[in-house]
Structure formats: structure tokens, C-alpha cells
């Protein structure tokens, strides 16, 4: 029987560290934080351009320095930080199988917080046609090349996507000697907010909307790409392709266990406390929905950490949750389940977080037991955060659903 810890936090990015530190602040004795890399920070480690830490530490850190600050915080708070520890399996009973340089071991926690973050969708999962040469990457891979190894995988890449991360990718390319040939976006509108989307133009890089890749050519390395816009095909020469964004939760551990993930989001479902269907498990950060900023993930981790501390103290049995139902074009709702009872502890989530799969205009209504509890008309864009306050009546409702009436 493996040693029983109070809480094991899996994933040492902003949300995991925040959860672990909050747990210690609340007096939880034995808090173990596992991260499979050699340093904490998660995805922030290789984002050399992005500023982190403004809200939580009242100063700005760039890239790897933020991870180091997180590590300091965790150690100062008395968290048992174990890096190069890779969780291989999540057990129903709170037992984790872990691989580390010392070998394989089992760890058990009274509660487990999974804060494993998100990753970008690669070429293969996007089912893009063509050859499969070298030089096809995601932003995370590119940033690792540059931040950790001083290497560049291409000189003249095509950038696919126009999310915030796509602009970060553009900056990474340009500041390390690569000259992107163009940025393409399949939608009619850029995903990131203006005026950020002026960045390609400002840098003299063509930005093509309503344009998608239909073929990739290259024997060993990428040589060219065929794009289609309004039915017209065009060939663009390039030596690499950067598929940016379209983040998906890094929830493979959940998928491979009995914990499971929701079909629409690919994320584990959590209730208003951040607790999964299996009440031994909690989750916070970008594993819940891809993606929010580092600061958002940090605050969420702290709130879920607090909820875990409450849960440990009260030991109240977790009731059967009610599923939050929603219509297309909604893509996800977090929390995706709501549990009744227990007004004593504060919710980790005060709002429902929603995302749309596409741009849509219409009326969004939250129904509790068939009665409208919240309603708003408007226009929404994909990948933008939509916040709906969780009504006080929600935990007692038997049916919770979001309906969308689209304008015709």
C-alpha cells in the first residue's frame, strides 16, 4: 500500500502551483506537486514573448523566469515539489502510477488535482491533405526549439491560424531569423482581437482570410503548400508550416482512465467546486477548456485549491451531479456538471464559462428546471470567453440547460 498524501497536484503550471500553494496556505499538511518536466511552469516556460505574473505577483515575468518564480512560491509554501515525475495512470481510488528517474512508484492522495494544461492540435488530427515532410510544427514545438535549444526548424514558414498564439508564433519567427511567407485563416474573420491582428500587416507579412490549406508538398522537407480561397487554388512556396492554436486539453490521462472526458470539449467535466464525477478528483486550468491566460489559470487553480481544502475538512459525501446541457453552436460549458447541497463552502467557479464553435448572433438563455434564469442577446465570436453568473438556484435545479435561438 503506497503512502497516503493529503493532496497530489498533477501538473506544475500556473494553475497547479496556485492550487498547491493555496492548499498549504489553508493548512493542508501534505501537498505533493508532480510535474513531468525538469522545471515548473508548464507551457509558460517556452513562451518567451508573453508577460506573466502581473496579477498574481504584481510584476511581469517573461517566459522561463515565470516558471522559476512559481517554483520559489511552491517551495516557500512548503509544497513537496517533485519534478521529472511523470504520472502514467490515474486510478479510481486516488492511486497514481508515476515514473521518475528512480523508477516506477505508486502515490495515493486523499484528493487529486489534475492541472495538466492543453496542447495545440497538430496537422494529423486536422486531417490536412498532402505529403508528410519535415518542417510541419505547432507553436509549442517551435517555441521549444528556440527557447531551449537555440534551433530553428525552418526559415520561411507558412503560419496557419490567427489566434493570440498565432501572433506570438509570428513574433517568435521574426525575432529568430525566420521570415514567414504568409499567415492564413480559414474563417472570414481573424480569431484574435483587433488591433492585434494588424501585427502581420505591420510586419509586412500577407494575411489571407477565408483561406485554407488543401495540399502540402515536399519530399523530405516542406516545399510548398496549395491554399484555396473562394474556390481559387494558389501555390505558396515555403519550407515549413506552423499550425497554431486549436488547443485541446491535455487530458489523455483522464481519457485512458475511467474518469473520462466530455465529447465536445475533450476535457474532464467538473462541478462548481472543480470536482469531477469521481469526487476524489479535481481539475483546474487549461485542461478544463482551452485556453485561457496564465493569470486566469492561476486564479482558477487558487480557487479550486481552496475548494479542495474545504472538501477535505468537511468530508461531506458528494451528491449525484446534474449535467449541464447545451445546444450548438456552443462548444463547451465549464462547470459541465452541478452538484446540489452545501451552501457553506464558496464555489470555485462563480460563473459558467462558455465558448462558441463559430460566430453566431442570437439569444442565449440559461434554463433552470425549464425556467429562464439568465438571458442575453448578442453576437458572439469563436474562442472568446462568455461568462454567465451561476444563479444561486442552480445547485438545487434538476435540469440545467443553455439554449441558443439563432437570428435568421
Amino acid at each position, binding site marked *: 500500500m503506497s503512502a497516503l498524501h493529503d493532496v497530489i497536484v498533477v501538473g506544475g503550471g500556473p494553475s497547479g502551483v496556485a492550487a498547491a500553494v493555496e492548499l498549504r496556505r489553508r493548512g493542508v499538511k501534505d501537498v505533493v506537486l508532480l510535474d513531468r518536466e525538469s522545471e515548473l511552469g508548464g507551457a509558460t516556460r517556452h513562451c518567451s514573448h508573453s508577460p506573466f505574473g502581473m496579477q498574481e505577483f504584481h510584476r511581469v515575468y517573461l517566459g522561463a523566469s515565470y516558471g522559476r518564480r512559481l517554483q520559489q512560491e511552491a517551495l516557500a509554501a512548503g509544497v513537496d515539489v517533485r519534478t521529472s515525475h511523470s504520472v502514467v495512470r490515474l486510478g479510481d481510488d486516488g492511486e497514481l502510477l508515476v515514473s521518475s528517474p528512480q523508477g516506477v512508484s505508486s502515490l495515493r492522495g486523499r484528493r487529486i488535482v489534475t492541472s495538466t494544461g492543453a496542447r*495545440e492540435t*497538430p496537422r494529423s488530427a486536422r486531417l490536412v491533405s498532402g505529403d508528410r515532410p519535415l518542417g510541419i510544427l505547432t507553436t509549442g514545438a517551435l517555441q*521549444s526549439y528556440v527557447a531551449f535549444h537555440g*534551433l530553428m526548424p525552418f526559415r520561411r514558414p507558412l503560419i496557419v491560424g490567427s489566434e493570440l498564439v498565432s501572433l506570438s508564433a509570428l513574433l517568435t519567427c521574426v525575432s*529568430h531569423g525566420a521570415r514567414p511567407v504568409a499567415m492564413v485563416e480559414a474563417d472570414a474573420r481573424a480569431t484574435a482581437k483587433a488591433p492585434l491582428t494588424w501585427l502581420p500587416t505591420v510586419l509586412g507579412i500577407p494575411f489571407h482570410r477565408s483561406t485554407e490549406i488543401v495540399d502540402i508538398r515536399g519530399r523530405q522537407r516542406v516545399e510548398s503548400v496549395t491554399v484555396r480561397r473562394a474556390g481559387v487554388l494558389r501555390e505558396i512556396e515555403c519550407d515549413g508550416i506552423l499550425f497554431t492554436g486549436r488547443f485541446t486539453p491535455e487530458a*489523455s490521462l483522464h481519457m485512458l482512465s475511467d474518469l473520462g472526458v466530455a465529447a465536445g470539449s475533450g476535457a474532464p467535466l467538473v462541478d462548481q467546486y472543480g470536482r469531477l464525477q469521481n469526487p476524489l478528483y479535481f481539475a483546474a486550468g487549461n485542461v478544463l477548456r482551452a485556453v485561457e491566460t496564465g493569470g486566469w489559470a492561476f486564479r482558477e487553480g487558487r480557487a479550486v485549491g481552496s475548494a479542495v481544502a474545504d472538501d477535505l475538512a468537511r468530508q461531506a459525501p458528494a451528491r449525484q451531479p446534474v449535467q449541464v446541457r447545451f445546444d450548438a453552436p456552443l462548444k463547451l460549458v465549464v462547470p459541465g456538471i452541478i452538484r446540489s447541497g452545501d451552501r457553506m463552502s464558496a464555489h470555485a467557479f462563480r460563473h459558467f464559462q462558455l465558448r462558441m464553435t463559430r460566430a453566431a448572433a442570437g439569444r442565449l438563455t440559461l434554463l433552470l428546471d425549464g425556467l429562464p434564469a439568465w438571458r442575453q442577446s448578442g453576437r458572439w465570436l469563436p474562442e472568446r470567453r462568455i461568462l454567465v453568473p451561476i444563479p444561486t438556484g442552480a445547485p438545487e435545479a434538476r435540469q440545467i440547460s443553455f439554449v441558443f435561438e439563432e437570428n435568421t
Partner: protein
Amino acid sequence: MTECVVNNEACTGAQQPARAAEGRFDVAVIGAGVVGCAVARRFALAGARVVLIEKGADLLSGASKANSAILHTGFDAPPDSLEHALVQAGREEYLQIAGELNLPLVQTGALVCAWDAPQADKLAAIEAQGRRNGVQRLRMLDPKEARHAMPHLSDRLVQALEVVDEHVIDPWSAPLAYLTQAVALGAVFLRHAELVRGEFDGTAWHLQTAAGRVEARSVVNAAGLFGDLVDERLGLGRSFQIRPRKGQFVVLDKAASRYVPRIVLPVPTEITKGIVVCPTAFGNVLVGPTAEEQEDRDRATVEQATLEMLLRKAAEIVPALAAIPVTAVYAGLRPATEDKAYRVFVRAEQRAITLGGIRSTGLSAALGLARHALHLHAGFDGIGRAAPAVPMVRMPNLAECRPRDWQAPDHGEIVCHCELVTRREIVAALNSPVPPGDFGGLRRRTRAGMGRCQGFYCNARLADMTQDLWPVPLAVKAAEAAR
């Protein structure tokens, strides 16, 4: 900073062919696909001095890098055909040697599934053919029995034929094991050595390759997709025509494996074995292949519409697969010819053997084809040397059914998290007797980079570990990129 310490020559492909290919070899094998590797091993075990000539950077650069990894029983091979005999011989030998080479053997069994009445009607004939082919453990199943064997099969199933002894194997470690054994016996592996021309002077062959001249007494053409062209370049004329047939595959996330414990085969048609849904030794589920004729012998592209079709098909067969994400997609080319049969030719006076048109069953038949080639060679000459002791070769295990390196202490660290590949494994592969010649070769020796993140987490690290090793590097120094 690279971690490849030894065998730099082979790593960089910067060979010294004159030195490497000095003297006269007994046998030159052309093509380092699964068949060529098996042939090299068989002749080396018989005492021959072997040179294996490969036009690419590594073994398995052509047809052999993409298949469904099934070790066939041969139940559905054309009866009394050479293919059938060689598949059975190949399978038997594999079963004998897998243990000592440390190669995995996963007995999944297979279900040939009929989804409508006309298909169900064909199952009896398939069973009869199987028994005639010497495959005894066959069992007809009604839908209830089939769902008991595989609970997640669609309830549209009409009937199924169980083939108990079908296995899945590691399709890359097996040929690598054959080649490693051959090399341990002194065989020479020449890369970047496309055959340009060959002349037979009455007693031996003079081969001009891209890596220099090679002399060998006999020649075995195992050049797969280029088999007909190689025969021509050897001055043997054209006895067959390669008509490449592309097969596209989708690899589903490991979360799919709990739904697919067995190989699911369709009722075959005239042209193709059909689209299969099967588990892999690495814990994934494969869907494919298609069968698409094309002219190009090099380029095997994936097409979005086809990949989407494969996903739909998978969900028709096992509905739970609809919710499983895609990990990888790939396409391979079969060296099909104008005839369904294997195109095996022997020209005794010219001491030349051609093993052409080996498609669909090459992985299963390779060891059988190798024995057959030695037998054909004996028809015109012996090897004339003593058979050496069999060298001990044990392959690192990549299969999920046995312990892997991440489970042992002191592995350094895990580099590829999605496939749980350790730094120690990667360094070992880079330093092995037959090291990878390109990134694909490293992936096939370790599984690194083949997982669901497709290099999001590990690609940069792998590039760093392999810098300066290969003619086509993954990356250049950032300062260089700026020039």
C-alpha cells in the same frame, strides 16, 4: 549537443563506400525493406558474405514502413499459391525466433465480419478456404457470440468468422532484428546507394550504385516499388510492371484500444483485403488501408476526404470510436503488379533472383521468402562457406504487452511523454549497430514523436539530440536561419 557517440559514419550517411564494399561479396541484396532484410539475414546465416544495397537513408524507406502490422495465418491466401506457402513458412519461422530476438507477438485473433446477408453468405467459403489452407482454429460466430468476444462491435453485425491465431507484431523491430543479425554476421549495409546499373560478366555482378561500385557473385532483387526498374537496370529485362497501390491509414488514440481487442477484418473483395480496424502492439488502433492505384512510386499522400471516410467506417464498425481523437495519419504504397501473385523469377545463368510484387503479406511472408530465395540460389550454386554460429540479438521492447524502459530505474528522463520513451532508449537507438539514418528511422526504433501531441512536447528535444547526425537535419542553429 548530440548524444550519438559511435558509428558516426552510418549516422551521417557519409560513408566510405570503397572501403565498405571492398572485395567481392557472395550476394548483393537490393532493397532494405522487410523482404531484403530477411534475405540478408538468411544468406548471412548460411555463411554468405552479404551486402545490402538501399537507395534511401535507412531500412524500411519504401513500402515496408507502412502496413497494418498483422502476422497473417494465411487463411485467406489463394490456395496452393506460392504466396500461401511463403506466408505460412514466414509465419512459422517468426513464431520460432520471436522469443530469442525479443520481438513481441500479440495474439489478438481476428473476426471476419459480415455486415449484410451477401457478405454473410461468403463466410462459409472463407472458412472452407481457411481449412484448406491449413488454418484449423476457425469458428463461425453469431452476433451474440461475436459481441461476447468483442463487446463494442456494432450491433449491425450479421455474422462473424473467428480466426483465433492471427497476431499483431512490431512491424519495424522485426526487419531491424533481421538486419541487425545479418550485420552481426558481417553483412554490410550500404545506404544512399541507389542501383544505377548492373552488369554480369559471366561469373559475377558489377553493380554501380550512388555510393560507389560493388561486386557480388549473385544478386537478389528485393526492391519493392522499384523491383521492375531494378531488373531493367540489371539488364534482365522487364518481367513485371509495378503498379503502385496506395493505402491510407488513420491511427486512433490509445483510448481506442479498450474497444478493439481483436483485429476486425471485412469480407474481402477482388481487389483488396479491405479496410481493417485493428489494435497495434503499441496500444493504438489502426483504421485502413484503402486501395488506390497511382503512377507515382515515391509519393504517398493523405487526403482529407479519404481520412474522414476511414473515420466514418471505423465508427460504423465500432461506434465508440467516433469519440476517439486521431493521433496520426499516414499512407503507404504497395508494390502491386499487373498480377495478384508474387512475381518471383530466377535466372540461373545470370545468378539473379527477383522477389517482385510482394504486396499485402510481405511482413508475414518475409522470412519464408528469404528461405525460398536461398533455396532458389541452391538451384544454381551453394554458398560454399560454413554456416556460422547464430549471433545473439535481442531487440529493445517497444510493445505495450511487455515491460518497457520507462518502468525501469535510471532511464534518465522521459523525452517523449505521449509514447513514454526514455532518453536512454533514444541514445541506445542512436548508438545501435544499425542506427537510424533519418528522423523516421529514429521514430520507428523508439516510438518517439509518434504520439498524440505529434512532437508538440518533444520534437525540439529530438532535434537537439540528433543535430549533425543526418544529411537532412530537423533544424539549424537559430543564427544560421537568419542568413
